[in-house]
């Protein structure tokens, strides 16, 4: 069992450049088991870049990423974490049930797990449709289904509530909380601060590739010098 005071994932001084532009600089934070971390910040703050660097999908120039105090390399990264990108249409010409079935087999999940995930996310009505024909909301549910079929201890989800209405957002939040109760840890990149405030335990506030603050809402309020204000107000104060 992971000791509560030992970070699951530790990032130190992470830096990333796209040609001459510095898109991430001096990012350091820790993530503990069974937490829900919200990466928040304005558009272009570097949220997706940060997640893709952690997932090993983008190279980074500076910094270290450790998993349970060991350097995170290609093999350990594949075992430790799974990143769900935003705006991806996997296998647009295949049917939803084929795509879900493929990921279930690839990640070694059971049929029972697949049925549960499909039911939880309300994908039943569209299983015979091609993934390329899905609406934005169903496409998002399909992607979430893929993430839930994995068995990685840490899930990095990019904009998991994008394309959902309020009821659907609340439903997905309930599912994600259940995922955490199962023992997994979540890092969510969210641009809707209201959604982030509803579900996240701690926040990483990014702007212009720099980490302006990290902590619980109370800790960020203290940093902003404002007590009993919303996350939105803290965000406006700090950015």
């Amino acid at each position, binding site marked *: 069992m992971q000791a509560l005071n030992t970070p699951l994932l530790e990032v130190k001084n992470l830096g990333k450049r796209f040609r001459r532009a510095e898109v991430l600089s001096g990012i350091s934070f820790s993530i503990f088991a069974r937490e829900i971390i919200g990466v928040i910040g304005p558009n272009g703050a570097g949220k997706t870049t940060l997640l*893709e660097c952690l*997932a*090993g*999908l*983008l*190279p980074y120039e500076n910094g270290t990423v450790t998993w349970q105090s060991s350097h995170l390399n290609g093999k350990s990264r*594949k075992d430790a974490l*799974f*990143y*769900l*990108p935003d*705006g*991806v*249409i*996997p*296998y*647009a*010409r*295949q*049917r939803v*049930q*084929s*795509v*879900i*079935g*493929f990921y*279930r*087999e*690839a*990640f*070694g999940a059971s*049929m029972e797990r697949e049925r549960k995930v499909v039911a939880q996310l309300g994908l039943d009505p569209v299983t*015979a449709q091609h993934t390329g024909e899905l609406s934005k909301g169903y496409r998002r549910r399909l992607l979430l289904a*893929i993430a839930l079929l994995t068995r990685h201890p840490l899930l990095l989800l990019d904009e998991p509530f994008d394309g959902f209405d309020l009821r659907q957002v609340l439903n997905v939040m309930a599912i994600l909380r259940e995922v955490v109760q199962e023992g997994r840890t979540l890092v969510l990149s969210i641009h809707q601060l209201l959604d982030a405030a509803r579900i996240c335990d701690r926040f990483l506030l990014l702007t212009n590739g720099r980490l302006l603050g990290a902590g619980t809402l109370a800790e960020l309020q203290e940093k902003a010098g404002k007590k009993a204000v919303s996350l939105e107000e803290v965000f406006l104060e700090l950015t």
Partner: protein
Amino acid sequence: MSSREANGALSVYWALLRNELRELFASRTPWVMLLVLAPLVGYSFIQAVSLFSDASQSAQGHPELARGMTPLDGIFVPTFGGLYLAVTLLFPFVAIRTIGEEKQSGALKLTLQLPTSVSALVVLKFLAVGCVWFLALIPAGFAVVAWITMGGHVYWPELVTLLVGHAIYGLAVAAIAFFAASVTDSVATAAIVALALTIGFWVLDFAGSSTAGWFARLSFLSITGTLKDSEKGLLAFSQIAQTLVFALGMLWAAVAWLPSGTTLARKLITVGVIVFVCAGAVAGAGEIRLYADMTEDRRNSFDPAQEAALRQIKERLTITLYLSPDDSRAREMESNVLAKLKRAVPRLKIRYGAVAKAGMFGPSNDDRYGLVIYEYGGKREESRSNSPREVLPIVNELAGLSVKAGDTSPFPGYPLVTKADALGIWFYVLLPALTFLAWWYKRGRQFDRGGTL
């Protein structure tokens, strides 16, 4: 790796392969290729049969003419020529999309996180593309069956050799397409890169057959080398090994370039190492002196007794041709004598002497033009003949070889007067219609639950 882990890995590979096949056949690209291939191969076959039949009619009652009637040259090479065209111009699009579309849609970000290595991913995609190549053989397969049904002769070692040549060529084209898809960001750019490379090899082939400069010397790099040998019924293992090394190098480079989390510098270094290793392997493969003449008429080799004698030559045999390499006499000598000598004589040097080239419409002013000089162990002979009947005695005499002609029965040839026009309906209508129906069925089919094919 424990047996449980091995089983887990195998089930992942199996799931990946089935998914690749589903994805491949869900797109129109392979179907279009198969649809185009049927009339293309059919037309080639029907025309080949017609020409072969006309020539056979003239050869009736003339054994000398009949000896030139070989189904390999007359029927199978032209028929499979349709496959060559489709593989060169259409197959890259089929192969590119297995990587290119995932890159373009962003789905590669999910694929790269699957519990398997990038090399396994690429190999499985390659296997799926290989299945399309096998399906592409169907029209040519029907042509072979039709030929046999008409009473045509098939010498299977020749036909299998031809298939091997096409398979290796297809493998190299697919590897180029994978590399192009790996290094570019869009399917369209990858297609341009792949076609530039495959069509670039045509230029190399042309240079190799018509000029003698450094550009022509590079023609050994062409991936069509194995195919051209196989069309002559020859298995040249050095050429096969070189093409395979090239294809594996391309695939290896595709594997090295695909992971998005690797820096450009590291990718460049890895590809540099791959180029270095493959260049060494290609050079090494060039030293393989192993050939198999698979033809029934043994057109790629001399009489077995003569071949055995030539292999015993210890010193270097130097042949200097005072001919332009694109002169028809030089080409004839190259195919009838020099190519065979290269395969048999351990140490052979062939060079073209500097002569004033013949004008476009008139003869060369240089008296030496047309002369061929043979040098061995300080001895020298001259001749203007390009026929093996005259060249071999010169070589034998220079090297002190005593060769008794073997007891080989002459190749009879297989002329056949027949017609294949009626098969037009099969190749132009029925086979394309069946391909279309297969696509329609596949398109409308409800896949099983669990993602099975």
